Structure formats: structure tokens, C-alpha cells
């Protein structure tokens, strides 16, 4: 199926994480579904901004038509993106913004992500009480963006206090151990905000028979399932679709076909699905997908932006595979 005309390069710097794997699969599936792509050239490994610069430059050497990149750091890869644009390559950043002005951005709004969830949580808590704040990886730019959103919501609820702030490193075992240790201290809390490491936290609460306080997580399949199945659990999943990768490919193809978007930046606003109201429950039910790997976000497609089927993204095959 090499009838497509474009070669698209992809650069991603986190490997082995469900969200990022879904993103890459969405890119592949969208490239296949579009029928416009002859070949994907994927640089996908664990590395830092300098390593991503290397990958981007390798993609420039490989003479791709467009590069879709999930930046390791917004500013750190500026030089590489600039070089790519100069070489006539269309650059699209997904998931996070970049500082290079010539690049197009289609991104999840991380600050809004945190704000939305935190605000809902604090409302559930009745505007007062103690919250356990489980962040992502210290020093990661997505984490600091989310921190901004969380702090913004916190400022709106002066009676909500942070009982404890921990970095989970986006690692499940660490998060679970932290939760259990915290529970053992007997400190009363009224809510838990997590940066997407959510299902193990629910497990920890259930296993230690601790009171189920309201909890906010991401739209990972496991957590979304728990929101419907675990008795007495009140919580909300904030969408953070990994399928943004597919949207990035679509945007790149549009630009290559000469349809430039009005602005350089397109933000995908997160949604919140909670199980406190009937309306929310219905949304959750519709979204739940127990057949997916629990680490995969359930929002496997983005309306208007992706055209592949569930089978295609799950198959995770790109053009020519």
C-alpha cells in the first residue's frame, strides 16, 4: 500500500509507557488510514532533549517530508526544529508545545488538564480539607505545567490544603508504595489527585480497607473501568488522549497538502468524566473498554482529527507493514 506520496518522520523520547505507545500506534494507524503516507520513519527510544535533537537531525538526513515530534522539552529541541523547517520539512509538535515559532503545535493542554481535575476534586471535597497530591516525574516539563494548573485551582479554594506532595515518577510500584506508606501514617485526607498513575492508587485504598476518598486520574483503561466497577468509589478521569499522535499526523498531512491551519497552535481541550452524576456515569460507560491494556488511555480517537478504526490502532501497523 505504498500509493501514498509522503514520508513522515516521528520522534518520541519515552519508551515502554502505555500512553506513549498508544500515541505511536495512533500515528501509525492514522498514516495508514489517510492513504497519503508511503513510509513512516520512527525514532522511538528513551532519551533526553539532546538525544531527540540527534533523532530529528537523523530524520532530516533521511529527507522526510514532515516530522511529528513529542518534545522531550519545549525549548531544548528548538535548534533541530529550526533546521528542519529550513530544510523544507513540516514540523508538528504534539502533546506539548515547543518554542520554535515555525513549528505547528497540536497539543493536549496540560495546565488545563490539571486545573480541570483539581477543580472538580476540590468541589467534591466541599471546598475544604486535605488533599494528597501525587505528581509525575520531578523535573519533567509536563509535570511542571500540570503543577501550574493544580496550583491555579488550589488558589481558588483557600480552605483546601495539601496534606502531602510526592513524586511518583509516573511509576506504578513507587506510587503504590507511597500511597500505602501514607495510609499507614493515619493522616486523614479528603481527596487524592494523581498525575495519571491512578489504578494502583485505587487498589491500594481497597486493599488496605481505607476509606475511599474522591480521586482524580487520567482516562487510562484500568482506571476508567474501576470508576464503574469499584463500589463506593467517587472519582473522575480527565482525558489526556494518546491518540493526539494521530491528530498530529493529520495536521502534518493537511499542511503538506497546502491546507495550513489558522493558528500555529491547536489545543485539544481535556474533558472530565466523573462518576458522581448520572450523566457522567453514562459517559464513563461509553468510554470504558476493558479489552484495552489498562495502561492505555481509552480515548483512542479524537473526533475530526483521526479517521482510523479501533482495529487499526490496536493492530498498531503503519503503511507498508
Amino acid at each position, binding site marked *: 500500500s505504498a500509493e501514498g506520496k509522503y514520508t513522515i518522520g516521528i520522534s518520541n523520547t519515552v*519508551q*515502554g*509507557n*502505555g500512553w506513549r*505507545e498508544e500515541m505511536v*500506534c495512533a500515528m501509525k494507524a492514522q498514516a495508514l488510514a489517510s492513504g497519503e503516507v508511503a513510509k513512516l520513519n520512527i525514532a522511538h527510544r528513551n532519551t533526553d532533549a539532546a538525544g531527540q535533537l540527534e533523532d530529528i537531525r537523523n530524520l532530516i538526513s533521511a529527507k522526510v517530508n514532515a516530522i511529528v515530534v513529542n518534545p522531550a522539552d519545549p525549548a531544548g529541541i528548538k535548534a533541530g526544529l529550526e533546521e528542519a523547517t529550513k530544510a523544507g520539512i513540516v514540523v508538528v509538535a504534539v502533546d506539548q508545545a515547543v518554542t520554535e515559532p515555525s513549528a505547528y503545535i497540536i497539543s493536549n493542554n496540560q495546565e488545563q488538564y490539571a486545573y480541570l481535575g483539581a477543580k472538580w476534586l476540590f468541589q467534591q471535597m466541599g471546598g475544604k480539607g486535605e488533599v494528597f497530591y501525587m505528581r509525575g516525574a*520531578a523535573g519533567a516539563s509536563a509535570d511542571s505545567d500540570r503543577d501550574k494548573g493544580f496550583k491555579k485551582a488550589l488558589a481558588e479554594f483557600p480552605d483546601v490544603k495539601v496534606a*502531602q*506532595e*510526592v*513524586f511518583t*515518577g509516573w*511509576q*506504578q*510500584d*513507587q506510587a*503504590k*508504595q*507511597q500511597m*500505602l*506508606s*501514607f*495510609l*499507614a*501514617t*493515619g*493522616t486523614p485526607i479528603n481527596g487524592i489527585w494523581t498525575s495519571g498513575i491512578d*489504578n*494502583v492508587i485505587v*487498589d491500594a485504598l481497597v*486493599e*488496605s480497607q481505607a476509606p475511599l476518598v474522591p480521586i482524580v486520574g487520567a482516562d487510562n*483503561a*484500568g482506571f476508567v473501568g474501576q470508576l464503574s466497577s469499584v463500589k463506593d468509589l467517587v472519582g473522575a478521569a480527565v482525558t489526556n488522549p494518546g491518540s493526539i499522535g494521530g491528530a498530529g499526523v493529520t495536521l502534518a498531512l493537511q499542511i503538506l497538502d497546502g491546507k495550513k491551519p489558522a493558528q500555529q497552535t491547536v489545543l485539544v481541550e481535556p474533558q472530565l468524566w466523573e462518576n458522581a452524576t448520572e450523566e457522567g456515569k453514562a459517559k464513563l460507560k461509553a468510554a470504558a473498554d*476493558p*479489552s*484495552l*491494556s*489498562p*495502561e*492505555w488511555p481509552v480515548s483512542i480517537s479524537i473526533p475530526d482529527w483521526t479517521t482510523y478504526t479501533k482495529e487499526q490502532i*490496536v*493492530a*498498531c501497523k503503519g503503511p507498508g507493514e
Partner: protein
Amino acid sequence: MSNAATISKPVPIGRRVKRFMADRPLIPLIILLVILVVILQILRPGIVNERWIANTIKFAIPLAILAGCQTMTMLTGGIDLSVGTVATMSAFIMATQVVNQDPAVAFLLAMMPAVLIGLVNGIGVGVFRVHPLIMTLGTSLIGTGCLQVYQRTVIASGAKIPDFLAWLGTGVTYGFPNALLLFVPLAALIVFTLARTGFGRLLYAVGDNERATRLSGVQYWQVITVLYVISSVLAGITGLLYIGLIKAPSLSLAEPLVLPSVAAAVIGGTSIFGGRGGYTGTIIGALILTVLTTLLTILQMPEGARRILFGLIVLFVTAAYLRIVEER
């Protein structure tokens, strides 16, 4: 004649205490563990209760088993950095295969990569004499790659944690974590193997002086191959236990345990250069690290300061322990 003279001399009490501890290296380690627990109790009164102890043990066990892999390989002067990958692989394969397969079949499938990687490690180190650090690093890269390829084929089928593993990993009976049912026999077996079997003797001897063992008729490659296979199988079992504990299969599940497992073995008094050490110390080392992690989680301080403190404490503990044990 001469030793009678040395013994009859009055020895100052401090020296005597030190010598007593030096002869029983476990005692200072246990004291250290108790000190950490006391600090924890002072910082958060009431934290040290039955539930906390059960939780601590639950998390210490997987670490202790992996640290057992390190202990045994370190005795021969090696190290096994592939344990994290192996544990992750068997956990992931178990969780994804059990969806469609009989649990026994899934178990066999899950242990297969463990045996394979152990075999490759063993042959690389034992036959080709590749440095263990490099060999196990290489196989762990390869294993991770394979796991990622595999992962794509099972996205559609999803994953499930077998009830038995969940029971073993998280369950508590009469206040005792069920994981002890697996760990106690396993630990006893490791201790016995090291102290009272020919294979255990050979591990120490090979790590001490390989040429000497060769002249005594020991075939290095056999010892090393069996060792790395055992290490891998233990890592695989840890993976199954760990998935029961965490209940969320991911592609980096057990990786965070690798460096701590090395640290636990070293804190427990096993020499990284081979020939010296034992498993009981390692178990305490794993407990110390687990308690330390809790302690640092409880403390309200910036993440940076927390890591600095962790590093300093690990260094201090190891140094103090060495001081005590070497004071003879």
C-alpha cells in the same frame, strides 16, 4: 601458647562490643533497621502498626528476592542487571497470556524468557567471558526490545491479574502477608544453598579465585551458567509476585528495583568483588531500603532534598557497616 596470652589480656569494653558485632555482622544491620523504624515512629507517632509492618514486608520481599539474585552473582564477582527486565517480562507475559490461556500454560510461557535470558547471560559470562555488567545490560536491552514487540501483539487482548497472584502479592492472613509463604521457603533455600551445598561453596570459591577452582576440577562455565539461570528464574518469580502486588502490568514494571537490589546486597555486606557475603544480610538490607523509602516519603521536603538524603543515608549506612565489620 601465644594465643592464650592474647586472650587473657583484658580488652576494653568498646573493643569487645565492636569485636562482638564484627563476628556477628547481622547485629549492627538489625540495630540500624531498628533505629530507622524508631525515627519513623518519632516523626509520625503511631505509624508503626501491624498494617504498616505488613505493607513494608510486602514491598521488601520482591526487592529482597532480586537482591538475592545480586547476592549470588556478586559472590562470583558478577552482577545481574537484567533482573529488572526479566521480572517485567514474566509479569507482563503472565498478565497478558492468562487472558486466553490456562494459568499453568501462561506460567510456563512467562518463565520461558527468564530461562532463556539466564542461559544467554550464563553462556556469555561463563563461556565467552564477557564482563557480567555488559552482558546483562545487553540482554536486558534485547529483552526490553522483545517485550515491546510482543506488547503490540497483545494490545487487543488486554491483561488480567490471576487471582492467585493477587492473593499472594497483596493478601494478608492473620497479619502476615501471604507473600511470606513464597519468600520464607525461598530465602531458606538460598541460605541453605550458599552455606551447605557444593554449588554454594563453588560460588564463593569461583568469586574468590577462579584459577584455583579450575585446578580443583571446577568447570567455571557450568557454575556460571547454572547461576545466571537460577538468578533469572528467581527474577521471573519475583516478576509474578510483583505483578500480584502492583496489579498493573507495564513495560517498565520492575526496572526501578534494579539499582536498589544492588544497593540492598551491598548494604547487607556482600562484596561486589566476589567471594564474601551472604543472603541473610541482604534481606535486612532490603528491609532497610524499604523503610528508608517510607521515611523519605513521609518527610515534607522538596524532591531534590529527598534524593540527596537518600543517597547520603545509603552511603553512610554502607560505610558505617563496613567500619564495624572490618574492625577486627
